[in-house]
């Protein structure tokens, strides 16, 4: 399969469209679309696609975009949408509904800083604010991973053991607007990978029921428990979807966590998204210089791959977590997750948080070198370290 030069938005639009088209012999697909920078090209790609049995509905807001997808999913269609930043913030109420109804909707999210003040560059705060919702979450490093993970997400979300919506995130501009060589699968391959959809809870005429009534606390709680159990089944189902993908496409869509020289590493960097590419180069160079350093890229954020992370840090003494996101008063969100993973099982591990590239700042090799130097010098964890503010006055300041 020859690679083509496409942007992250193109890759996402291609994957969503091919997945929708693949359900043409069943109930087709439907999506609500609404523009917001920098994901607009995704929904515009979908709007142009010559579908056989998919309805694209250009709605009046993100709230409605997810609403239309919820209705379509309830009615048995494959359903999806794409959004970003404040669009996701406005969509939140329905994002939550999709999760609690266990609707296997796939959303591609271009990570962009939440406003105000307005800023259109990469920051994971928009999707990480959904971290407590029943959604599977993936963070991607390049355009191929965006395409492959989007296709995989449909299969995983629609798996009867799972039935949870899934989100695929990519960094604003660094991926959304950057062209990379990307293999675009043929429609027949996607057809084989994503079989016809038959949702168990679609509106069936033989058993009309009303969803969404008032229930007692214990009933609502048991629904939460079911979600928890489905979340627990995700890692195994993900592996199956991943191997099926490798078999069909001849390519690995990427493991839940991806390690680099962690086997004997005493210092480990933990990253996600596009920071991984830069960090890997820094680690490679330092390895060449004989340093005992490694890297973990976290692709699956929900459910958090705790066991895999613990395993990958077996030989580590110090861990640096680089976050392109910020939880107010706390620090980086991946950092928080890491600390809870080792609570009571690795308490002696030094896990330091670094806020890098927030609000779209560049994370350069020299910044990552700064992280390594800082980590090496410290003998205890402290408050997160903020990198990249400079004089805080922007380019002209």
């Amino acid at each position, binding site marked *: 399969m020859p690679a083509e030069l496409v942007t992250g938005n193109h890759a996402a639009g291609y994957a969503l469209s091919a997945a929708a088209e693949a359900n043409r012999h069943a109930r087709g697909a439907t999506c609500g679309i609404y523009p917001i920078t920098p994901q607009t090209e995704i*929904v*515009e790609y979908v709007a*142009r696609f010559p579908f056989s049995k998919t309805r694209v509905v*250009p709605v009046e807001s993100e709230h409605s975009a997810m609403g239309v997808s919820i209705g379509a999913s309830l009615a048995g269609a494959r359903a999806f949408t794409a959004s970003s930043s404040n669009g996701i913030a406005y969509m939140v109420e329905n994002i939550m509904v999709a999760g609690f109804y266990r609707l296997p909707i796939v959303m591609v999210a271009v990570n962009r800083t939440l*406003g105000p003040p307005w800023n259109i560059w990469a920051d994971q705060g928009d999707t990480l604010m959904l971290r407590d919702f029943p959604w599977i979450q993936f963070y991607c490093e390049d355009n191929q991973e965006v395409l492959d993970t989007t296709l995989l997400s449909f299969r995983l979300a629609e798996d009867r053991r799972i039935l949870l919506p899934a989100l695929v995130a990519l960094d604003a501009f660094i991926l959304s607007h950057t062209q990379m060589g990307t293999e675009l699968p043929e429609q027949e391959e996607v057809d084989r990978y994503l079989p016809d959809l038959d949702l168990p809870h679609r509106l069936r005429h033989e058993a009309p029921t009303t969803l969404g009534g008032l229930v007692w606390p214990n009933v609502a709680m048991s629904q939460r428990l079911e979600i928890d159990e489905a979340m627990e089944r995700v890692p195994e189902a993900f592996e199956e979807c991943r191997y099926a993908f490798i078999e069909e496409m001849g390519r690995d869509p990427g493991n839940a966590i991806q390690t680099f020289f962690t086997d004997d590493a005493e210092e480990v960097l933990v990253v996600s998204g596009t920071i991984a590419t830069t960090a890997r180069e820094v680690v490679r160079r330092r390895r060449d210089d004989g340093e005992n350093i490694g890297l973990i890229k976290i692709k699956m954020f929900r459910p958090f791959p705790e066991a895999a992370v613990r395993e990958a840090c077996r030989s580590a003494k110090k861990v640096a977590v680089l976050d392109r996101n910020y939880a107010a008063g706390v620090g980086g969100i991946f950092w928080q997750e890491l600390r809870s993973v080792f609570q009571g099982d690795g308490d002696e591990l030094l896990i330091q948080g670094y806020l890098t590239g927030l609000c779209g700042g560049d994370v350069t090799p020299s910044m990552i070198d700064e992280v390594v130097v800082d980590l090496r010098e410290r003998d205890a964890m402290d408050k997160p370290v903020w990198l990249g503010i400079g004089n805080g006055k922007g380019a002209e300041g």
Partner: protein
Amino acid sequence: MSAVGCSLFCSIQDDEREFGMADYESARARWCPGCGDHAVLTSMQRLLAEEQLAPERTVFVSGIGCSSRFPHYMKTYGFHGLHGRALPVATGIKLHRPELEVFVVMGDGDCVSIGAGHWVHATRYNMDMVALMLDNEVYGLTKNQTSPTTPAGYATNTQPYGTYLPAMNPVVATLGITNASFVAQTAEWIPPHLYATLRAAYEHDGFAFVRILQRCPKFTGDIFQQYIQSPDMVELLEHEAGVETPALHAIYKNRRRHDPRDIHAARQLAETDDVVRLGIFFRDESFPRYEETRSLPSFTAEERISILNEEFDRYAV
């Protein structure tokens, strides 16, 4: 807008400053060359200068869009908010600082798409403010997507095979909202009409909704061309209780006397779309304004005590 008496700003009002248009100019406007938003900005700066509105007595609230950059270019108070959400913010400001002149600037997407709920309810609240909808019939900032006012059949990036639905008529819709007290339409390419309409909206006691037809040479450059090239396709609604623009009579022969107190005629005129009608469709200052309906009653100390005593009496055993 009525001047609300307030000791807070009287001292400022009495000052000796004189404001020219340049005193309201802030950052250099970064709209495209030929964008109709420039004309609205100039007209607004002229209005403020003629009214000698002190910058600290004036606030511009906007949503998100090309048009919503407006507050950045005005040297007054400004609030550049969320897409579609300007009106509730303006409501809060006006309730707490009634002496401020509040102007709301929205795009068509802002006002009648994602923010449509607020437009309906702000009209019903009828608070004393000016709401401008800069209607280029497209989402400009996100680069060419169908909005509710995009003409049917018009190809955009979200409806590349032509816009599916008939365009919404925001004037008809606003006239249908309970408590609508001022509904006007103007075009930014006719500066005297734009100015007269802005002035009338400013002078209105209540919520003044103005749809401004606005050229976007970037994405909908052809949409208003016919009206610009053939003034006969435009009809001016004139009346002493509305706006009158004698300076335009030589060019705009197509004029109609319309009494803006007549809601039925207003609705009929707004419905028919054989020509584009500019002017004040409806205006009625007798409608209750939210800030009056919700004004806090003022009691004397004795009255307060007697109310309290009455309340205590209810629990007496």
